C-alpha cells in the first residue's frame, strides 16, 4: 500500500517541479496525464484501504520538518517586513516563538507520523479528481492570462504542489506534521491570491495569510496543551484515544478554531471573499476540493471526541448562525463569484455542523455534502471563468442576455445551482440532518436543537431565494428569436465541464449506491464503529433509525430541473407573439436582478462571530 500512497505525495511534487522547466506542449501532456494518473491512484486507494494504515518516516525527517517549519515562518516574517504588514509580522513572531518553545520542550516523537484510513482516501478521491479537472481547465485559462510565460508555468506548478500538500495533510496523524502542511496550504493560498500582483490582490493575500496564521497558532497551542495536560504526544490517534478525559477539551477546541478559520466561518470569512481577486481556477480550487475542505475534514476526524461536549454545542450554534448570516450576506451581492463564495461559506457551515453533531446519519450527510458540493461548486466556478474569458461577464446583473448568447453555459450554470439546492445536495440534507440533531439532543439541549432547526430552515429558504435569483437571470430571454444554438467554448473548457456534469448526473442516479457503499463505510471509520447499518427497503433508504423517502425526493428532483431544462427547449406552435407590456412607456429599462441591501448587518455578523469564537475557548476552559 505504501508505494501507492507515497506516489500520491511524490508524483504531484515531481510534476510541480517539471512544469517549471518543460515547454508548453509537453507541459500540457504532463498535466493531463498526471491528473488522470492521480485520479486513478486515489480511486485505487479508496477501493483498497479498509483498515487504518499507519506508516512512519525515519527520525531525521522530523528534523527536516522542524527546519521547514522554521524556514516557512521566517519567509512569512520576511513577507511581513517587505509588505509592511503588522498583523502578519505579529503572527509570524508568535508562531515562531511557539514553535521554538515546543521544539525545545517536547520529547522526540516516537509513533508513526502518518495514518491513512477510509476518511483520508475519501479526501484523496475528492482532492485528486476535482483538482485534476481544475488543473486541465487552468491550461487554457492561464494561457489567456496577461502575464509572462514563466508566471504561467509557475501558476500550474503551485497548483500541483498544492495537490501534494493537500494529500499530505489528510494523511498526517502527527500534529507537528499537520501544522507544517496546514501552514503550507496557507502559503499556497497566499501565493495564489497574490498572483495578479495588483494592490488589491496583495492586500487580500496578506489578509488570507494572517487569518490562516491564527489557525496555525491554534494548532501549536493544541500541541502544547495535549502535552501539558499529560496526554503525551500530539497525534490525532492519541486525541481520540483519550476521548472524555478531563483537559482534552481545550486542545479539541483549539483544533476546531483552526478548522473554523480554514473553513472561513465568520468573522474569518473575509479571507475567502478576498480570494476572488485571484484567477478563477484558484477560486475553484480553494472552494471545491482543497483549502476550505480541510475544515470539515478536521471536524470529521475529531467528531467522536467532540460529540456531546460543550465545544460541539458552541460549534453547532456558531455554524447555525453562519449558515443564516452568509446566506443573507449573499443576497446583497452582484458579482457572480462573490455570490458563489457566500454560498460556499454557508454550505461549509452546514458540513461543519453535521460533523460536530456526530451521529451516524449526520456524518453520512456531511460526507455527501462535501463530495456533492465539491463537484457542483467546482463546475460553477469553472463556468464563472468561462463567463469572464468567453463572454466577458463578471457581474450577475449583466448576465440577463446569457440565455441567448451562451445558452449552453446558462443551462450548465442553472444545473449547477439546482444541484446545490435539490436533494441529494443542499436543502434537503439540511432538513434530514436537523431532525436527527433534534432527536439526538437531550432534553436540556432541545432548545439548541430547535434553534439549529430554525437556522437550517431559514438559511435554506434564503439560500434557495438566492439561487432562484441567479437562475432567473440565466433563463431570461426576449421573444424575438426561437433559435437555440449552443456556443462553442473550445475543447478544454467544454471538456472539463462535460466531465463535471457527468459526475453530477452519475452521483444523482447512483445516490442509493453511494450512500450504502461509499459514504456509510467512510462514516463508520470516522466514527470508530464497525459498521453503520444502511438498508434500502422498497422506496426508502434507512440509515439507523432515520428514513429517507426516495420517491418524493426523486419527484422533487425531476420537477424543477426537468421543468427548467425543458423550458429552454420547448416551443409552442401556432401561437402568436406579443411584445412585453410597457404601460405606454417608451423608456428603455435595464434589467438587473434585485438585490437586498443587507450590507448594514455585516459588522453585527462579524461581532457575533467573534463572540462565538471567544465562547468556544471559554467553554473548553471550564
Amino acid at each position, binding site marked *: 500500500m505504501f508505494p501507492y500512497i507515497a506516489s500520491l505525495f511524490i508524483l504531484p511534487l515531481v510534476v510541480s517541479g517539471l512544469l517549471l522547466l518543460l515547454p508548453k506542449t509537453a507541459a500540457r501532456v504532463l498535466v493531463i496525464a498526471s491528473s488522470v494518473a492521480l485520479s486513478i491512484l486515489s480511486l485505487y486507494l479508496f477501493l483498497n484501504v479498509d483498515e487504518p494504515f499507519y506508516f512512519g518516516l525515519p527520525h531525521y525527517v522530523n528534523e527536516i520538518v522542524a527546519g521547514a517549519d522554521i524556514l516557512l515562518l521566517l519567509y512569512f516574517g520576511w513577507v511581513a517586513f517587505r509588505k509592511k504588514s503588522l498583523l502578519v509580522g505579529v503572527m509570524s513572531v508568535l508562531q515562531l516563538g511557539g514553535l521554538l518553545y515546543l521544539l525545545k520542550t517536547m520529547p522526540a516523537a516516537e509513533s508513526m507520523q502518518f495514518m491513512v484510513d477510509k476518511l483520508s482516501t475519501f479526501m484523496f478521491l475528492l482532492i485528486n479528481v476535482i483538482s485534476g479537472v481544475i488543473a486541465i481547465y487552468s491550461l487554457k485559462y492561464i494561457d489567456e492570462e496577461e502575464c509572462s510565460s514563466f508566471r504561467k508555468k509557475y501558476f500550474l506548478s503551485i497548483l500541483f504542489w498544492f495537490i501534494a500538500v493537500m494529500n499530505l495533510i489528510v494523511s498526517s496523524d502527527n500534529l507537528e506534521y499537520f501544522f507544517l502542511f496546514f501552514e503550507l496550504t496557507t502559503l499556497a493560498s497566499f501565493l495564489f491570491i497574490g498572483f495578479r500582483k495588483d494592490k488589491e490582490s496583495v492586500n487580500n493575500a496578506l489578509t488570507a495569510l494572517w487569518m490562516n496564521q491564527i489557525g496555525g497558532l491554534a494548532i501549536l497551542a493544541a500541541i502544547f496543551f495535549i502535552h501539558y495536560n499529560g496526554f503525551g504526544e500530539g497525534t490525532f490517534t492519541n486525541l481520540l484515544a483519550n476521548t472524555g478525559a478531563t483537559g482534552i477539551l481545550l486542545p479539541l477546541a483549539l483544533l476546531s478554531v483552526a478548522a473554523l478559520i480554514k473553513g472561513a466561518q465568520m468573522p474569518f470569512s473575509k479571507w475567502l471573499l478576498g480570494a476572488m481577486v485571484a484567477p478563477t481556477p484558484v477560486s475553484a480550487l480553494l472552494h471545491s476540493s482543497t483549502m476550505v475542505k480541510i475544515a470539515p475534514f478536521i471536524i470529521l476526524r475529531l467528531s467522536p471526541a467532540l460529540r456531546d461536549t460543550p465545544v460541539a454545542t458552541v460549534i453547532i450554534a456558531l455554524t447555525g448562525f453562519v449558515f443564516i448570516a452568509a446566506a443573507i450576506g449573499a443576497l446583497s451581492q452582484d458579482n457572480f463569484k462573490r455570490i458563489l463564495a457566500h454560498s460556499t461559506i454557508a454550505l461549509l457551515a452546514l458540513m461543519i455542523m453535521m460533523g460536530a453533531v456526530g451521529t451516524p446519519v449526520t456524518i453520512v450527510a456531511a460526507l455527501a455534502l462535501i463530495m456533492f458540493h465539491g463537484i457542483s461548486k467546482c463546475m460553477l466556478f469553472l463556468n464563472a471563468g468561462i463567463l469572464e474569458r468567453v463572454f466577458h461577464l463578471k457581474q450577475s446583473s449583466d448576465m*440577463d442576455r446569457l440565455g441567448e448568447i451562451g445558452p449552453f453555459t446558462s443551462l450548465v450554470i442553472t444545473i449547477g445551482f439546482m444541484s446545490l439546492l435539490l436533494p441529494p445536495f443542499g*436543502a*434537503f440534507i439540511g*432538513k434530514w440532518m436537523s*431532525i436527527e440533531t*433534534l432527536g439526538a439532543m437531550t432534553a436540556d439541549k*432541545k*432548545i439548541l436543537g*430547535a434553534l439549529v*432547526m*430554525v437556522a437550517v*430552515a*431559514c438559511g435554506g*429558504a*434564503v439560500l*434557495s*431565494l438566492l439561487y*432562484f*435569483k441567479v*437562475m*432567473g*437571470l440565466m*433563463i*431570461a*430571454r*426576449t*421573444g424575438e428569436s*426561437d433559435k437555440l444554438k449552443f456556443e462553442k467554448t473550445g475543447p478544454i473548457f467544454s471538456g472539463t465541464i462535460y466531465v463535471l456534469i457527468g459526475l453530477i448526473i452519475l452521483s444523482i442516479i447512483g445516490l442509493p449506491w453511494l450512500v450504502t457503499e461509499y459514504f456509510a463505510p467512510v462514516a463508520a471509520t470516522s466514527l470508530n464503529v464497525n459498521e453503520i447499518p444502511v438498508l434500502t427497503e422498497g422506496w426508502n433508504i434507512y440509515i439507523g433509525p432515520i428514513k429517507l*423517502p426516495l420517491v*418524493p425526493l426523486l*419527484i*422533487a428532483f425531476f*420537477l*424543477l430541473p426537468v*421543468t*427548467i431544462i*425543458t*423550458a*429552454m427547449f*420547448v*416551443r*409552442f406552435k*401556432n*401561437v*402568436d*407573439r*406579443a*411584445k*412585453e*407590456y*410597457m*404601460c405606454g*412607456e417608451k423608456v428603455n*429599462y435595464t*434589467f438587473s*436582478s*434585485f438585490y437586498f441591501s443587507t450590507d448594514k448587518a455585516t459588522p453585527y455578523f462579524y461581532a457575533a462571530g467573534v463572540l462565538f469564537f471567544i465562547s468556544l475557548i471559554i467553554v473548553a476552559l471550564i
Partner: protein
Amino acid sequence: MNDYLIPVLLIVLAPIIGGLVYGFERVVKARMQRRIGPPLLQPFYDFLKLADKRKMIVHSAHAFLGIMHFVSLWFALGVLLLGGDLILVIFLHLLSTALIILAGYSTRSVFSHLGANRTAISVLAYEPVLIIIAVSIFMITGTFETGAVYLWDEPLLYKMPLAFVALLLILPIKLKKSPFDVAEAHQEVTGGVELEFSGLFYEAVYTAKWLDYVFCYTLVFLFAGSNILLGIGLIVFTFFYLNALDNSSARVNYKQMLRFSLGVAFSLAFINLLINILS
C-alpha cells in the same frame, strides 16, 4: 382503501373547490361593501372566456413555466392531502412559487420583473414562519407526516394558539390579500408576474391561485387534528377574517410587510415553539 377516498377526491376536485371558494369570496366581499357582486360561478365563466381567447405568448419558456407552476402546485397539494411530510410539502410549495418567479424573471418586462422580485420577498416573509410552525407540530406530535396530524386526537390549536395566530398573519401574504398584496398590486405593478400571461396560458396561473386557496385552508385544517367540526369552524373563521381584512385595510409596502412578518409573526411562532419545547 377508504382512507384514500377523501384525499384523492379532494385532490382531483381541488381546482373546482378552489374556484368555488374564489367565487364565494367575491360574493362575500361584495356584500361587505353592500354591492350585489358577481354570481358564484363567475370564476368559471371567466375560465371559459379565457379559453376562447387568441393565444399569445412572449416566448415559449415563459408560457411553459406558467403551466408548470400550476402542475407543481397541484403536486404539492397532493402530497399535503395524502399525508406526506410537512417539510417536504413546504419545500414543494417553494419550488412551485420558484417557477412562477423564474417565469417573471424570464421576460424583459418591467412589471413582470417587479412582480417576481416582490413575490420572492413574500416567500422570504412567510417561509420561515411556516417552517417554525412545522417544527412546533413536530414537537407536539413527534412526526412531520401530515397523515399522523390528521389523526391526532387533541386539536393542535389548544397547544399552539400563537402559531395559529402567526399563520393567520402570513396567510394574506400567501394569498395576496390586502394589506400584503404587494406581489400583484394592480395599481402599482399591474398584476406583477401574471401580467405577461394571456389566454389559455393565463388560465394556468389563474387556476393555480385557486389551488393555493385549497392549500392554505388545508394548512388551517391541520390545527384541528382529528376534530373535523373544529377544522371546518377554523376554515370558516379564517375565510371571513381574510375577507374582512382584505376589505378593510390598505396596502403596505414590501419593507413594512417584511418587517411585520419577520418581526411579529415570526416571533409569535417562535415563542410558541419555545413553549412547546419547554412544556
